[in-house]
């Protein structure tokens, strides 16, 4: 069913994803340039998806050009109108028109796929469309944010857009935050748990989608959502965030030495969520979990410094620094000597080729020039 929601032909998208994957292997040196020249003849996609060097100038120029064109044609008309409804109708017209141009002309006719041009036209169109729906006053802020969440989510799914995915995620949290804050009382008090619960729900849905047939097409969006929801679970329950938000939203009158209610729970979460992520990362060999855990660890280090080591920050960071260095060197030595499934070398075909051959021979690398001495026939041996 989701296939019908996507603006591009599925076969072409799959081809494009394959090309991106093969290009990754070329970058890692697994596939040679000569092989890539032959492969791209058979595996190229009809879709136009340029590299970021071309995409970025195209995006900026289109953004400025289209905005100027819209201002040129509709600016005078909008300025002449004193009617809110009339203006919203014009915005609706412009927004819908731009999205249709992108859909029928750029995507169907010229086969653009996230080329920078499509994004610029769609974002401007979506912006006008959003304002036409919500109006200029933003009377109900959470509802406004919710509408933008919906628009961004539709763009994210239909055009496989990463930026729209991130924006829809952020707007969703903003709308949830505004809604619960507006509800007040117990809802405001339970904001951290609601935030963590919502993130957990998104994480579970994302995990389910990862196991589905849509994983291939939405892989990058799902990875982004998974990363964002893992970070948001931590942020929602981080002691610093909860304390500062409680003081500003609930008008808590507490001194520096006093603790917020349920402080122990939040301290526990601040410390153990990164540990938990790290353990999952090691167990599942997931770099995503390990990286998110590292970011959360840094945030936890800063949190504990703010509340527990305010007077001894220099000593605290110096000791943490020593611990990190010792930890890195210990792990480096451990992973180098033990077969844990993790390697300390950069993932490059040449380096792993050497290590694998040496592992087979039961020796350690001693000759720096070994790479150059290994013939093609030896590649397959490991």
């Amino acid at each position, binding site marked *: 069913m989701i296939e019908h929601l996507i603006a591009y032909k599925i076969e072409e998208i799959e081809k494009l994803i*394959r090309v991106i*994957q093969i290009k990754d*292997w070329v970058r890692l040196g*697994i*596939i040679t340039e000569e*092989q890539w020249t032959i*492969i791209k003849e*058979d595996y190229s996609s009809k879709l136009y998806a*340029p590299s970021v*060097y*071309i995409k970025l*100038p*195209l995006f900026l*120029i*289109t953004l*400025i*050009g289209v905005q*100027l*064109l819209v201002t*040129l044609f509709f600016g005078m008309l909008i300025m002449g109108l004193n009617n809110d409804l009339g203006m919203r109708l014009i915005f609706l017209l412009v927004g819908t028109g731009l999205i249709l141009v992108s859909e029928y002309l750029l995507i169907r006719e*010229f086969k*653009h796929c996230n*080329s920078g*041009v499509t994004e610029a036209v769609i974002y401007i169109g979506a912006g006008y469309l959003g304002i036409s729906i919500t109006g200029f006053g933003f009377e109900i802020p959470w509802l406004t944010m919710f509408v933008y969440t919906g628009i961004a989510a539709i763009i994210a799914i239909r055009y496989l857009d990463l930026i729209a995915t991130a924006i829809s995620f952020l707007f969703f949290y903003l709308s949830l935050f505004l809604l619960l804050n507006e509800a007040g009382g117990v809802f405001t008090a339970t904001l951290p748990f609601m935030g963590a619960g919502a993130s957990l729900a998104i994480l579970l849905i994302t995990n389910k989608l990862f196991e589905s047939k849509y994983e291939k097409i939405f892989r990058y969006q799902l990875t982004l959502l998974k990363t964002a929801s893992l970070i948001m679970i931590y942020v929602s329950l981080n002691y610093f965030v909860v304390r500062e938000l409680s003081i500003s939203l609930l008008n808590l009158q507490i001194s520096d030495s006093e603790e917020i209610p349920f402080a122990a729970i939040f301290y526990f979460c601040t410390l153990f969520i990164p540990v938990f992520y790290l353990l999952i990362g090691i167990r599942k*060999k997931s*770099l995503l979990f*390990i*990286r998110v855990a*590292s970011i959360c660890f*840094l945030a936890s280090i800063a949190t504990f410094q703010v509340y527990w080591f305010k007077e001894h920050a*220099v*000593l605290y*960071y*110096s000791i*943490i*620094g*020593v611990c*990190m*260095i010792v*930890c*890195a*060197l210990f*792990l*480096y030595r451990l*992973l180098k000597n033990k077969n844990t*499934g*993790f390697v*300390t*070398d*950069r*993932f490059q*075909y*040449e*380096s*792993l080729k050497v290590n694998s051959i040496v592992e087979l021979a039961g020796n350690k690398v001693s000759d*720096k020039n070994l*790479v150059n001495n290994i013939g*093609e026939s030896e*590649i*397959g041996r490991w």
Partner: protein
Amino acid sequence: MGIHKKLFDEGLIERGQYNYIEMINDKSKVSVFYELRSLLYVGILFFTGGVAYFGYNHFTHVGHLLAMLSLSATLIFVLYKVFKLSHPFSAKKVIVEHNYFDYFVLFVALLWISLWTYIQLYFGLLEILIRPFSFVSTLLFFGLAYRFDNTAVLVLGITALAASVGLTVSPLDWINGGYVSLNSLYYSSIVLGLALILISYVTILRGIKNHFRSTYLHFGYLLLISGLLVAEIETGSWGFIVMNILIGVLISFYHWKTREFLFFFYGNLLFYIVFNHALYKSLGMDFFILGLYHYPLTLLGYIVFIVSNKKQFSDD
């Protein structure tokens, strides 16, 4: 079926390559190279930052001298390590298998800058020594970049070279319009830009470190274009306008042929800015009325042109 299996079945990749991709996909080996390195770097940052701040607060003069001595000792130690790990010089790209080799070389360059900036600041020699220091640093960084094949140090070398002829832009200068009022410094910028572009061609012609070409070209074009634009604005001369239009066309045309989008775009950018300046100079205030139509149409026209010629830059 994974794409790598299909490629293998069709004989497009070899068994070794297939096995390697399979190993990455099924996670039988996972590389934590970047993660461990980040952990080490953040640890070093925390520790050195903490110790330096502690020394600065508690040991005043002795602390400064100790800091300089420890920086010097570290510099010598890392340089020794770099020489020990390095391969002999080659005009081609040299790959050293050690994971951190490139970062050691970069560390040497950064330590050099830190040490000498510290010395100049502490002894109040900044105004006297800034130019000679930049020049010596240029020589050192270029030497390191070529000897140990390091593009990041080459970038530092080019930046030091620009600084030694007086070309530095700080964000504050930019905000205050300092870059525009550089008087005759734009000549230095133009000459240095041209020199770097020339070096990029000599690099290829002589086959010495061919992979440095794009770095030279990037800096060369940026210096040349900014110098030409500042010169045009400062002098307001039609001669500069005509020359800049010609240079813009030349750069665009040349890189259209070499199929390098970014450099082609640099040429386009120069041409477009100068062309608009010329229009403004000839039309005066009427330009703003023309601009209403001119900007959207030319910008969208440019997009249509690029997209309709997408095959030209398909390798980029």
